[in-house]
């Protein structure tokens, strides 16, 4: 930004030119930094601090104790909740990865017209901009005992009795998660796929590679960063969820966060804070693990 300033033009101010570049950047990024510090940085610190506090009925007692963490780590409920949430995260991750990759592959490599490509991409992403809760609820009349799916199965004589496991079950939870989060996986993969130089693929084709080999040897490795980003999104969304599990399992399954919400509703803030900090550490470890995995592979390839 430090180009020579012509002196014969007197329009406008030249204050921006005189400020040091990093100060200009700080002024531009400042509002973001302030808002994130006030409503994200400090609140996170407060939760961490409160997780070491004691509580008396609904009052928070400032002190420094590890009891809340001892409770979290010694209760077998914690273990069960984490296993359940991790199970959902793993299943949903695998399904959204396959679907997201396939969709991105179709849009990037099989649709030639840019206009149609944009149109189909938007068709996939429009539901993302509508209410999550409504999209989740919309599965209820579909999967219910007298729902559309069961009616279709009975009409087609595939089953004689309505399937009970469709709604208010782990199955329904997974369906809702996949419905809500596939886009989070598709968009980053689409982005990294779209950046692949078509000449690489041409070259592979000329060298006699099959379509499947191209997909496995070229497209997949080059999409790693997109897959990692999508995985981070999906895994953190599932681990942080509480309303899908609550509604779609009909109250049969709980998630880490729904248990946390119960503690908050009971005004037990210090134990809730300790559970929340534990969850965030687990989520951060998972994110770090994904990043490490991808970086290691990148080193192996190049």
């Amino acid at each position: 930004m430090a180009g020579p300033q012509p002196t014969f033009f007197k329009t406008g101010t030249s204050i921006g030119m005189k400020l040091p570049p990093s100060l200009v950047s700080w002024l531009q990024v400042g509002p973001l930094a302030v808002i994130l510090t006030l409503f994200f940085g400090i609140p996170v610190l407060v939760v961490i601090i409160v997780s070491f506090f004691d509580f008396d009925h609904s009052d928070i007692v400032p002190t420094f104790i590890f009891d809340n963490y001892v409770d979290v780590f010694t209760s077998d409920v914690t273990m069960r909740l984490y296993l359940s949430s991790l199970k959902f995260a793993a299943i949903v991750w695998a399904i959204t990865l396959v679907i997201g990759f396939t969709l991105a592959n179709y849009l990037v490599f099989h649709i030639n017209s840019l206009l149609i490509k944009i149109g189909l991409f938007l068709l996939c992403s429009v539901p993302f901009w509508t209410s999550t809760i409504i999209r989740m609820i919309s599965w209820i009349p579909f999967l219910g005992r007298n729902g559309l799916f069961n009616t279709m199965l009975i009409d087609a004589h595939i089953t004689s009795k309505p399937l009970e496991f469709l709604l208010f079950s782990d199955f329904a939870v997974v369906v809702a998660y996949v419905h809500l989060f596939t886009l989070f996986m598709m968009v980053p993969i689409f982005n990294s796929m779209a950046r692949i130089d078509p000449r690489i693929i041409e070259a592979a084709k000329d060298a006699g590679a099959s379509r499947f080999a191209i997909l496995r040897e070229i497209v997949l490795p080059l999409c790693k960063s997109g897959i990692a980003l999508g995985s981070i999104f999906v895994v953190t969304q599932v681990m942080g969820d509480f309303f899908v599990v609550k509604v779609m399992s009909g109250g049969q399954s709980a998630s880490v966060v729904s248990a946390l919400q119960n503690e908050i509703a009971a005004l037990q803030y210090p134990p809730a804070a300790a559970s929340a900090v534990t969850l965030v550490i687990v989520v951060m470890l998972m994110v770090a693990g994904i990043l490490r995995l991808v970086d290691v592979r990148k080193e192996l390839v190049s």
Partner: protein
Amino acid sequence: MAMTASGRRPWTYYALTLFFILFLTFLYAPMLVIYILSFQGPGGGLTFPMTGVSTRWFHELVERGRSGDIAGTFTRSLELAAVVAVITVAVCVSAGLGFRRRFPGGGVVFYMAIASLVMPGLFVGLGVSLIFQLLGWGTDWRISGLGTQLTWTLPFGLLVMFAVIGRFNRSYEEAARDLGASAWQGTREVTLPILLPGIIGVALFGFTLSYDEFARTVLTAGSENTLPLEIWAMTTNVTSPALYAVGTVTTLVSFTVIVVALGSIALIQRRRSRHAAASH
């Protein structure tokens, strides 16, 4: 890969097209079902069959008290979303421009934004509500709700800005400077107009993410509910198609916002390509 040399499409094209159509059905069919069911007849229930066609459930929404203060929550959520969208655009455009240069401390802000994006929403809400409680302030959707929602929309807007700015050709800016424009003039008259479609995209994200936000708002909205909180309450205590009627109305609002945003982006792009064609 799309076409073989002879111009015939490979079988995978058809298989993938089928897969894509199935996915779209999976995506849209359940939503369509609840829009249809929201016109359920007066005596009908939450599932098919429909006992008739009526707008009774929509009327029920307007009548205050029958299923909560829906009209009030709608206005509240729209106001909040509009404010969030404006702040998100202003803060993210500015920050996006600022991040084009490496500067000390920039990495910290960036990683804070990413952490804010992946942090479970309820955690952030818990922290904000704890602060308000410790300070003896009451939570309110206008202050604590707004701030907490921004920790979700700002990182998103920032990522969109990075994508938009990544495709921006800086030589336009240099040309403006060579012609004697000041930094601010260059930004206002060259950079921002070129980035406008992307900026509309940021506004769309800001608005819709706020309008549908739940996990961050549930502990920070205070005594007055936003629409998603109201819908959440309805899922547990309303067992009539009025629930679907809310869904239909709120989706209509979202669609209107999406169409206006995408429509204006398309309009700008078309006008640009026409200008480009005319000048050749």
